């Protein structure tokens, strides 16, 4: 059930990759890599769609990535209203694309596709665990 702790609001409770939450608690964002064929997955998967193996390693997302795209949302679905406005974004780290939010303290005029970003974990006041992209 630990996956209920993922994100501002989680919609899923059970998954075979809930070790993702344990890594978030340790301050790490990790994806899975198939031990059999080496394919890397983010978001993490329990099953490899390339070779059908279910034997996975966890690899760490780290270093400097670049911003692929983003949008600053002025409206939100139910449960996210308090955070408005916030920026959802995608970044790429060593060939692996990650979706998440961008650090809200970065001024709008400094946000641009192609900018260098890092990723850091965070915990909300209610204990929910997540991660965000920061300027690098």
């Amino acid at each position, binding site marked *: 059930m630990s996956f209920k702790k993922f994100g501002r609001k989680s919609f*899923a409770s059970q998954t075979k990759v809930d070790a993702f939450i344990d890594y978030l608690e340790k301050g790490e964002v990790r994806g899975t890599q198939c031990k059999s064929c080496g394919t890397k997955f983010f978001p993490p998967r329990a099953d490899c769609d390339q070779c059908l193996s279910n034997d996975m390693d966890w690899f760490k997302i780290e270093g400097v990535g670049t911003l692929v795209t983003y949008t600053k949302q002025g409206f939100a679905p139910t449960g996210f209203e308090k955070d408005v406005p*916030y920026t959802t974004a*995608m970044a790429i780290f060593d060939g692996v694309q990650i979706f998440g939010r961008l650090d809200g303290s970065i001024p709008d005029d400094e946000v641009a596709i192609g900018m260098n970003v890092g990723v850091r974990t965070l915990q909300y006041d209610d204990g929910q665990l997540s991660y965000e992209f920061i300027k690098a």
Partner: protein
Amino acid sequence: MSKDVAIIGVGQSYFTREYPGSIRELAFDAWREAAQDAGITAKDISASVICSAPEYDAQRSPAGVISEYLGFVPAPTFAIESVCSSSTSGLRAAYSMVKAGLHDIVAVVGFQKMSEITSADSQERMGRGSDIQWESPFGTMMPGYYASHAQAHFKQYGSTERDLAMIRAKSTKYGALNDRAVYRKVVTVEECLAKPVVTSPLKVFDCCGNADGSSCVIVANADRAKELCKKPVWFMGLGSGSASVTLTGRSNCYGLTAAMKAAQDAYAMAGITAQDVKVAEVHDCFTIAELMAYEALGFAELGKGVELVREGQNEIGGKIPVNVDGGLLSKGHPIGATGGSQVRTIVLQLRDEAGPMQVPGQPEIGLVHNVGGVGLYANVTILGR
């Protein structure tokens, strides 16, 4: 062109903010028009395919009640869903059933009563529109994903907010001519640009409005089509594709690969190229979606879609008139009904019956591009007369 499966009748309801009736009555409005158009009654229907996005339906498994109310019992019926592209997915199933010889006449009925649920419920469902395990927890919403594509398209190809505003201004010009459209007012490029931002860079007028509505397309084999119909419109090509739900699985964010695959398959089946298409309906749930469609469909080279916009080549009289019924932007977007409404427009165009929206010169080939989710599902249908 192999003339073996035809569309012999089309219908759609008025698209409105709040339909004053039930979903079965809404569906009947489109069926009535399509049946009268085809010159058939419910007894002629050998099977039906009912299309809607079920998260907006209070009724569970609506195919049964719709089929019953339209008088199709005991003909087989079932639902097909691919969110916003549901009714062209239904059309694909109907084509297959007729082509296979299982049925001679199939009704594809699309409907959505968006006002069936409260605004709060709608906001809640909006949060579950993407991958609920990995992306919804960040507070994503559909306009945000299309906005992310707009940012990427701007960066990659130099398109601008003004280009998008020009697409909306065009849409309103034709929407004003369409008595079935929910939005009938003409607005200027400057008015579009002055509207507040919803999710950067998309503003209020870059987004289509919700609407209640229904559509109906009657598909028949060649024998029945020739017997019943003076102006059958024939299927030339059907293409369909998919892409990953999670944005992280996409190869880029400045085009929709599912639509590109669907287009290639449809052109190959029809044995034509983009230049042969004389009128098109594309899925403009957001202005950026229409711009990306020009490129996916080959109306413009990748990155050159803006030239069609800036030169007005996307209007009646231009190289490729697109969405000259107002598109989703002005007609409104009743999810399950939208694809069927697009098909209706192209069928009327090919029959030279589109009234004030008619593309002159009696177009012989038309195309429908209908997308579900943010390029998650895509159907391209090529029709000819």
